[in-house]
């Protein structure tokens, strides 16, 4: 579980030059970057909204668990998976 522990402690932030915002016409959060755009699903949007470089992943998970009660395990697992993927794609830096 080394990776889970190390991810919990990092404070991810949006990579420079990426624009993250709500887009009414898509009814979704979107990510805009050079030559690309991604429409985020609602949970990805909720996670990314909190990635400000100050909150650690465990802070983010705690916040989400408070905001959406009754899904603790699912939220923790989803946040770990999302942060890992988003780092791999270059959306998030730590």
């Amino acid at each position, binding site marked *: 579980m080394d990776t889970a522990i190390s991810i919990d402690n990092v404070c991810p932030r949006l990579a*420079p*030059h990426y*624009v993250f*915002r709500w*887009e009414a*016409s*898509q009814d979704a959060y*979107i990510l*805009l*970057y*050079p*030559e*690309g*755009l*991604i*429409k985020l699903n609602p949970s990805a949007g909720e996670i990314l909204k909190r990635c400000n470089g100050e909150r650690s992943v465990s802070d983010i998970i705690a916040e989400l668990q408070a905001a959406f009660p009754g899904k603790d395990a699912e939220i923790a697992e989803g946040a770990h998976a999302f942060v890992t993927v988003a780092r791999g794609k*270059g959306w998030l830096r730590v």
Partner: protein
Amino acid sequence: MPKESSGLSLDGQGLPLWLSLELTYRCPLKCTWCNNPLNFDDYAQSELTTDEWKRVLREARELGTLQLGFTGGEPLLRDDLEELVAYADELGLYTNLITSGIGLTDERMGALKKAGLKHVQLSLQSMRQPLTDELVGAKAHALKLEAARIIKAHDFPMVLNMPVFRQNIADVDAMIAWAADLGIEYMELANIQYYNWALLNRDELMPSLEQVREIEALVNRWREKLGDTMTIYFVIPDYYEGRPKACMNGWGAIHLTVAPDGVAMPCQEARVIPGLEFESVRDKSLAWLWHESPLFRKYRGLDWLPEPCSSCSEKDKDFGGCRCQAFLLTGNATNTDPACSKSPQHHLVTEAVRSVAQPIRFRKPLIMRTPRAVSTAFMD
């Protein structure tokens, strides 16, 4: 230019997510692979005004556009570029500048940054000054290197675009090394595609299959070495692999181009197809042009597909390939793109690739993109 590698595979839900504004076809360069119309010089007098471009931007945003490319020609030749960028940024569009770098000063870059520009794509053809200058027909090499420095100094994310063809293919390695050194995040090795000027010069510009394979191997070595620090876009061009490109992600699916004179098109090349009705934002709303115009409906979706496409298992992936290429090579835009190995006219592509590999043949001069280099008067 139709993109094979925009990294985009998404359902636009019928919205023009991606807008390209060809602000002008004027350009200080004379590139022989240019995808602008052969009669580009005829558009200089009919360019949209600043207010007309702003109306296009407003209407596009209302239609759901998110990504915006300012292209040309050389968009820096428009004095209102900063004003248009600022307006687009206020509307919430992600603004990309696609430039040759000629005319990019430190002052102008600062003004564009202030206006809200998000990203710059710069083209560079080689790492050797005499070669670059010969290829683009102007003293451009030093200016381009300076432009790269200015873009980085202003902390823009940057895509370095290297159009790849036979005359510069040996420079790919040096260019990647240089880009990595400069800290460029994205590099696009854009195998040129054969429309307009590039098609006129195809026999001379097209690399051999062996050369393309060597570049592929080289790119893979660099990707391994550079890891996350740089993303290199490179795909084997459609002429070589028997698979057509998913041109523009489908006709009228997510891309909308507006030409300097306001004509709205599903791609930058569509005007090569005769018999289609091209209409301008001067006369029609963008919403009507996108949703209702006969041009955008002509090849939208999959219902119009001919055989062998309509019964093909890959039709959802490539939409029958490129309509412009189908017309230019087979004479009928409704045919299967001959880049597809299942096309009855696939030999047109394979023969073109084979013929350039002949050791002895007549080498033609390259036709530079200049006014009156060719006459288009009798093409209708």
